């Protein structure tokens, strides 16, 4: 007993033992728990940033590679050639470290069409037949007789083309090309620019008058093709209406809030029907472009069908007024009563343009995220007038243009020609354009299949 008293005495005294911890303790505690709190969101942000970065990089790369070609389309022919020459000469300067004395100066190149001094450019003959063919068409070695009457124009803008492409040790070949300016349509100039660009990119075309070794040979691998896949995209599942992303709509389409639309003294009517899920499907075509080892950008054209089911009363084929308020009312030729258990299928037909980014995160699995711009082409969906208790059709109360987001995880099989997996789609745009009542958004869960038919 005495022993217990001693322990109890010690225990009581120790309960009162307190010390004020230093500020450093809390700082370390805070530092110790902060990374764990943020770890998961950081991963999400990292993935999101990666998606944006990868997409942006590929967009930038593709845009910059086509930049000169696009620019040439909007420039005068002479300017286009001169601009290209500047670019290539500048590259040559950078690569050789010597000033090309015989190269065309930019001042010469920039001479406008119509001046008497001819411009010359050095062209290298591309080793690709296709390119050569195009060059021959645009830069004929021998002018045709029909062009003779335009000799003075030839002198305005002549392309002398001592070409060189001897990276294999073959003696450089020089040729002279004359370009009749009046025959240079915007398209041909554009093609000319493309050919120059293509040759320069693939065979190391040098435009200086001095033969310079090029950087590629016949044995070089062919130019990487635009890796496109084409096929059919289909999906089937269920759809409903949502007030928010993960919150189902609790009532049928409400064009007008019943309280706002109620004229004083109106007898209150039953609440609108609950919205039940309905069938949804989509069918369309897609074109995917491979952007990298694990990335694809997809474009498509798709027909989409959404539906949901509500319970309505008997159909009445007589004119009635709906949405009466202090300022306006609508007149409909037929409507449905609110009391009844007859199923009515609200159907929405849309034509959509989906843009998807696919990321292959595992050998057989791809995560697809996309945005879809849609146009509602037809619907029979009903609105509910809370004041009169009537369901009615009114096409004008729908937002015809819809923007939705979708995400899908797809499993690839059959030599990766078929992708199959669950997809979730949610429309950001409010289905109703009246601006009153709860927002309604189309939402669907489905099984999606991408079937590749061919590729180039």
């Amino acid at each position, binding site marked *: 007993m*005495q*022993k217990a*008293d*001693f*322990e109890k*005495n*010690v*225990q009581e*005294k*120790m309960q*009162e*033992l*307190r*010390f*004020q*911890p*230093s500020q*450093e*303790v*809390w700082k*370390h*505690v805070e530092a*110790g*728990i902060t990374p*764990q709190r943020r770890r998961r969101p950081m991963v999400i942000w990292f993935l999101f940033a990666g998606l944006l970065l990868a997409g942006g990089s590929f967009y930038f790369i593709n845009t910059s590679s086509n930049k000169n070609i696009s620019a040439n389309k909007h420039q005068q022919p002479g300017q286009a050639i001169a601009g290209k020459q500047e670019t290539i000469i500048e590259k040559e300067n950078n690569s050789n470290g010597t000033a090309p004395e015989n190269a065309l100066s930019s001042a010469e190149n920039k001479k406008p069409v119509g001046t008497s001094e001819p411009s010359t450019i050095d062209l290298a003959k591309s080793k690709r037949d296709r390119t050569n063919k195009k060059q021959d068409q645009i830069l004929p070695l021998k002018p045709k007789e029909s062009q003779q009457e335009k000799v003075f124009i030839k002198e305005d803008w002549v392309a002398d083309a001592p070409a060189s492409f001897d990276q294999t040790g073959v003696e450089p070949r020089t040729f002279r090309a004359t370009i009749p300016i009046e025959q240079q349509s915007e398209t041909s100039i554009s093609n000319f620019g493309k050919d120059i660009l293509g040759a320069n990119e693939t065979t190391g075309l040098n435009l200086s008058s001095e033969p310079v070794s090029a950087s590629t040979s016949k044995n070089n691998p062919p130019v990487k093709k635009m890796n496109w896949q084409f096929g059919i995209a289909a999906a089937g599942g269920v759809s409903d209406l949502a007030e928010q992303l993960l919150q189902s709509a609790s009532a049928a389409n409400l064009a007008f809030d019943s309280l706002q639309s109620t004229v004083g003294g109106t007898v209150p009517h039953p609440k609108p029907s609950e919205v039940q899920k309905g069938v949804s499907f989509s069918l369309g075509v897609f074109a995917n472009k491979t952007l990298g080892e694990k990335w694809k950008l997809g474009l498509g054209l798709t027909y989409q069908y959404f539906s949901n089911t509500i319970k309505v009363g008997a159909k009445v084929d007589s004119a009635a007024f709906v949405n009466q308020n202090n300022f306006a009312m609508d007149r409909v030729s037929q409507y449905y009563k609110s009391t009844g258990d007859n199923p009515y299928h609200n159907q929405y037909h849309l034509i959509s343009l989906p843009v998807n980014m696919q990321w292959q995160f595992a050998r057989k699995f791809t995560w697809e995220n996309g945005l879809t711009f849609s146009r509602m082409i037809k619907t029979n969906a009903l609105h509910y007038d809370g004041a009169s208790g009537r369901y009615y059709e009114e096409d004008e109360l729908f937002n015809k243009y819809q923007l939705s987001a979708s995400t899908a995880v797809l499993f690839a099989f059959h030599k990766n020609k078929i992708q199959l997996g669950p997809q979730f789609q949610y429309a950001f745009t409010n289905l109703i354009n009246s601006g009153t009542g709860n927002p309604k958004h189309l939402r669907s869960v489905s099984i999606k299949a991408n079937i590749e038919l061919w590729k180039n």
Partner: protein
Amino acid sequence: MYERHAEYMLGVCYRYTKSMSDAEDVLQDGFIKVFRNLHQYKSDGELGAWIRRIMVNTAINYLKQQSRTRADLSFSEANLHPVASDNPEINLTVKELAELIRQLPTGYQTIFNLHAVEGYTHVEIGELLGIHEGTSRSQYARARGLLITWIKKNALENKTPVYAKSRL
């Protein structure tokens, strides 16, 4: 939650360690565990008791990890301090008593705190420290005896004994 419990929990940690710096290290590690495992706390129990249990376990682990204290944290029967069966009156302040407890050899200090202050049984202490139940009993008896000796001595001399002089 930290502001509410930190001062008391530092007192708990202080009893198991030899310095305030070590006590704050234990307090810091303990609160990190508390916040990371807060979802495991069941609301039917008292939060303070739950945090205290975490602090005690953290302190035990801390002592085990400290190489210098690992040598001290021995529960050998060779330490033959006298066993006191009497029950002196404790005329010490809270901090003076805490200082006496902290001046016990680490093994004694740990077992005394676990049994006398936290209320653990010797079976629980044996499981917690990985020692035999009997060892815990005997170690506790000797810790108690040593502490009583110091308390009596302090009462006579009216000062806190020096740990270095008392330690065998």
